[in-house]
């Protein structure tokens, strides 16, 4: 038996924001004035960012209205059939790439961003991959996350236990009384609900016995086969009984360590890295008191003082999917570029293909030289495609970043163009030096630039210059932060 490998080097350590937590008021509802930057922050964290118009619409109402609209969207989702190309490209059952495009398109065009964001959260949490699971089962699992991702965790975990994709992914379809398979039981404890060190090897073995019998029938559907189930007495985390799959779920969620585990993961996803133990404890209490209700717990987080604190503001790196979808939403692009899954792989987050059962490590692991260049070059390539081609039509339509529209609004004025861009893209979260660099770029007075005959900003070059400034602003370090 191989000794346990030390993986105690926690990549999150060191990325807690500077300053101290106000533990007294952290989870109290935010009562400050709710403005553009608050709305943009909320849309980045609880969705995939927004255009200037969407941000303005959220900012025009109250914080409570904004959070309620995200948690309980009134309008039905964009119908599944309403796609730009319903034939080959978006048939999710046809291939892995179309399945990825299908989900990315949901993220781009949904009017329920938090529902889709929670699906992405659970996809990283219950990290299942196309590498082993058929495409239609992966789609089924994402639909499950979309339907139940804001419901109660015990119901979600019970549904995941009998989800065909999960039955295949972690081999519970092969788990039977005669030949137990511990793979799913182990990951339920280690990765899905408790965390390493909070259970024993015996707990894993006994829980595996309780999960026996759930398998896949000949039609690929989940099925419980009583003859394969071990119905004998079991001892799991100190509880005794003839437990089945759903009993394990109930036992696990009753553990305080589980409540902290889920609280910690939600805080890391929505608020900031390495949250303080007091904040985890308070959030765990909200979660337990809500009856393990994800919507209520996430709602409490999204309304809280700590969520709108300067310590949480721009305190998380955007994941590649957040960066890509946020960029498309800002620009007003309505179709997912066909090579986006490949570009996301280079950025380190190919949807439906997490690197392991642990999902994506996230946090600082999103950022290295290769993945940053992939982000920058995704933006540069996309913005370049918004330029009119030979026939005067752009390959990609980006109505929200149309140079003519911008010049109509603010005039042929480099300072006002730069101001509009840093306001729309990064809500003015830049230094005066950044503004000066963008203005110099627009004016063609960049120091040390090597140009043959620099033209001043004007009718001959404003379109190219504005597109360049859009790319530069999108590629600012601060825009890598959610």
């Amino acid at each position, binding site marked *: 038996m*191989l*000794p*346990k*490998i*030390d*993986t105690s*080097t*926690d*990549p999150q*350590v*060191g*990325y807690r924001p*500077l300053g101290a937590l106000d533990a007294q008021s952290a989870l109290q509802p935010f009562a400050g004035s709710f403005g553009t930057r608050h709305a943009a922050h909320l849309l980045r964290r609880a969705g995939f960012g927004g255009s200037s118009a969407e941000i303005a619409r959220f900012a025009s109402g109250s914080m409570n209205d904004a959070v309620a609209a995200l948690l309980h969207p009134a309008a039905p989702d964009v119908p599944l059939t309403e796609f730009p190309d319903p034939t080959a490209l978006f048939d999710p059952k046809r291939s892995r790439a179309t399945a990825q495009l299908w989900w990315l398109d949901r993220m781009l065009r949904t009017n329920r961003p938090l529902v889709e964001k929670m699906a992405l959260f659970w996809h990283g949490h219950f990290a299942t991959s196309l*590498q*082993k699971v058929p495409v239609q089962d992966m789609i089924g699992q994402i639909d499950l996350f979309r339907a139940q991702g804001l419901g109660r965790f015990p119901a979600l975990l019970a549904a995941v236990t009998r989800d065909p994709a999960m039955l295949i992914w972690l081999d519970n379809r092969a788990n039977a009384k005669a030949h137990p398979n511990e793979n799913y039981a182990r990951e339920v404890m280690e990765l899905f609900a408790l965390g390493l060190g909070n259970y024993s090897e015996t707990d894993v073995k006994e829980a595996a016995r309780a999960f026996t019998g759930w398998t896949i029938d000949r039609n690929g559907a989940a099925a419980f086969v009583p003859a394969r189930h071990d119905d004998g007495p079991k001892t799991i985390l100190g509880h005794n009984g003839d437990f089945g799959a759903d009993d394990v779920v109930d036992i696990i969620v009753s553990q305080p360590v589980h409540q902290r585990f889920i609280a910690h993961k939600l805080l890391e996803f929505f608020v*900031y*890295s390495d949250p303080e133990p007091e904040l985890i404890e308070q959030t765990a209490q909200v979660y337990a008191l809500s009856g393990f209700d994800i919507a209520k717990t996430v709602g409490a987080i999204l309304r809280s003082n700590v969520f709108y604190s*300067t310590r949480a*503001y*721009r*305190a998380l*790196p955007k994941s590649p999917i957040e960066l890509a979808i946020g960029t498309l939403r800002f620009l007003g692009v309505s179709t997912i570029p066909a090579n986006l899954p490949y570009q996301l*792989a*280079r950025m*380190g987050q190919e949807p439906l293909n997490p*690197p*392991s059962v*642990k999902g994506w*490590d996230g946090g*600082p692991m999103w*950022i*290295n*030289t*290769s993945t*940053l*260049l992939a982000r*920058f*070059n995704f933006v*540069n*390539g996309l913005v370049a495609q918004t330029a009119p081609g030979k026939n005067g039509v752009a390959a990609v339509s980006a109505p929200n970043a149309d140079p003519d529209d911008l010049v109509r609004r603010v005039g042929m004025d480099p300072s006002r163009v730069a101001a509009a861009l840093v306001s729309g893209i990064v809500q003015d979260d830049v*230094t005066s*030096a*950044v503004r000066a*660099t963008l203005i*110099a*770029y627009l004016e063609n007075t960049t*120091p*040390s*630039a*090597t*140009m043959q005959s620099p033209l001043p900003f004007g009718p001959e070059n404003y379109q*190219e*210059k504005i597109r*360049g400034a859009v*790319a*530069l602003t999108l*590629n600012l*370090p*601060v825009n890598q*932060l959610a």
Partner: protein
Amino acid sequence: MKRRSFVTSALSVAFLGGNARVALAQVAGAAPLLPGFAAGAGADNVLVVVQMAGGNDGLNTIVPYSDDAYHRVRPAIGIPSAAVLKLNDRIGFNPALKGLKELYAQGKLAIVQGVGYPNPNRSHFEATQIWETAAPDHPQQYGWLGRYLDRRYPAGAKPPSLFEAVSLGDTLPAALVASHVEVPAIGALGAFAYNAGRDLAEKQSAGILYDGAKAGQSPYLSMIASTARDAYHGGDVLRAETAVFTNKAVYPKDGFSAQLALAARMIGSTAGSKIVFVSIGSFDTHAGQRAQQDRLLGYLGDGLLAFYADLAAHGLDQKVMTMTFSEFGRRVTQNASNGTDHGTAMPLFVVGGGVKGGIYGDHPSLTDLDAGDLKYAIDFRSIYATVIEKWLGRDPAPVLGGAYPSIAFV
């Protein structure tokens, strides 16, 4: 745990060149070299890892041509004895491996036979995870080379070069996932660059923005800003560094050899790469195996022969060790499509001037099988342990989570 910046300004090319490298190599806190390496011999050895993706069929790679059982189980896809490039009176190379036969004749090739691990996994994804994280029992967050790098350069210490460890592909393999050591994935030199449009001022403005980026309340902002500086300047640094190295061998024209030619430039130039990951595939030969596998083995052998000729011409062949791996071997018996399905143990190759050429381990029996599959005799972690201890000069136990007997190929 915070990564430190490699490139602090546009003057980085000068900064990273010459004596600065030597000084940086002596940073405090690095895991110590084992005795015998401390004097300098072998202290800057290089490891190239070749992934043969898809599961390479071992029986048609190192062929047990004198075993009647081999010809019985492979009536259509077996390699006739006369065609085998014989190593001895029992085994020989696939005829496409004439490059490896030449390296063997030069004493630079070790063949390690019967490599595997207990309870072998037949899923491409899971078996690849097992090999790349050296963890058959449970998935690991970091790869075996990533864990080596993290211990070689503990938090706070940084490698002398941004390109100390690189993957010559578009994405990072699990083997190179490290907790804090930066490992770039470089599909091509041109892709590792900030590629703006034809307006040069745009790219230059990006550099000004990254060089001038300020820290904020979140530690992520300074980390992203410094990584952006590395990324922005790193491509120019890499191109400047590799430009001074000229490949002195004629490589075959396939993509694998293109990776090896770039590997030679990264190892032999001031880019100073010490761990390089390259990949060749797909060896997943469920149907029509002979044509596909032979073509790929030809790329492998001919590419490595050119690579070592190139390295030798630069006086580097003694400093560079190359090892292959594949996620599994294939079934002993051919299938109905003149291919083979996912199996277990296989041979792998270790190449280099510092390698004691020869054959290590016995060819697995074709009659004493485990449910129709070859039994392994050498745990793959023994090969990793040998490489880490005898070639890279570090203690392998903390990296591999246990002690494994080393093999005499170094």
